[in-house]
């Protein structure tokens, strides 16, 4: 499963789901589903999200099993 820090970083930037969606060109629902880990975005959308949230893609998204391997 793909995990992410979109919700945390969006809150840190003071953006609503709709505002972040507008910035990266997707709907509010898409941001919501990404945050819940129920939708895996394309590489292009991941890059746009990382750019607007000012973070590297691999720090924004990671695989759950990678985290399990580290612990």
């Amino acid at each position: 499963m793909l995990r992410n820090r979109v919700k945390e970083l969006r809150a840190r930037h003071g953006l609503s789901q709709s505002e972040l969606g507008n910035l990266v060109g997707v709907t509010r629902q898409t941001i919501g589903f990404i945050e819940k880990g129920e939708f895996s975005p394309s590489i292009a959308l991941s890059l746009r999200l990382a750019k607007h949230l000012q973070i590297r893609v691999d720090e924004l998204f990671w695989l759950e099993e990678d985290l399990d391997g580290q612990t």
Partner: protein
Amino acid sequence: MDKHDFRIQFPLWNIALLSILMIWCYSVVYAADMLFNDFEGTILPNGEIHWNIFGLISFFVGFVLLIVFFVAYFLKLHRYNKEHPNNRLTAFTSMKPHEILEDDELFQQVSEKATKKVYIFYSNYLPLVILLMAFPLHRFVFIFVILLLLIIQNAIYYRHLRQYVMN
């Protein structure tokens, strides 16, 4: 986009229209039978006219419901186009149905998954319809069953869309 969005509700509008057509098709098939059989059995030898009361009811009820449906549909469409001037919908389309949402990659995926469910439904049930057609039933029954398949198709599609929008 929420569950009240016209494009999300489009399969429900399709279901309403198909349900009305189910009522109406009985009289249309009956009228076609009369026309192609030169009104045999309708105009009796003594000059009396034998009315099929169910056919008449089906025609008038279906006709009134169709008018009500199209008035409501065009009002809803007009309101939607007024609220979304950059994303206007046409009343009728022969290309891409309005219920196929491609606003972004989530909705593309949702539409693809819903379409997949519909494909599986047809793969399973069309052979049964073919089997049904082997029996000497009235043409009305075949049309009714095909309309029923279309209603179920729209219901499957709407159910899938709705669960994403509700979230």
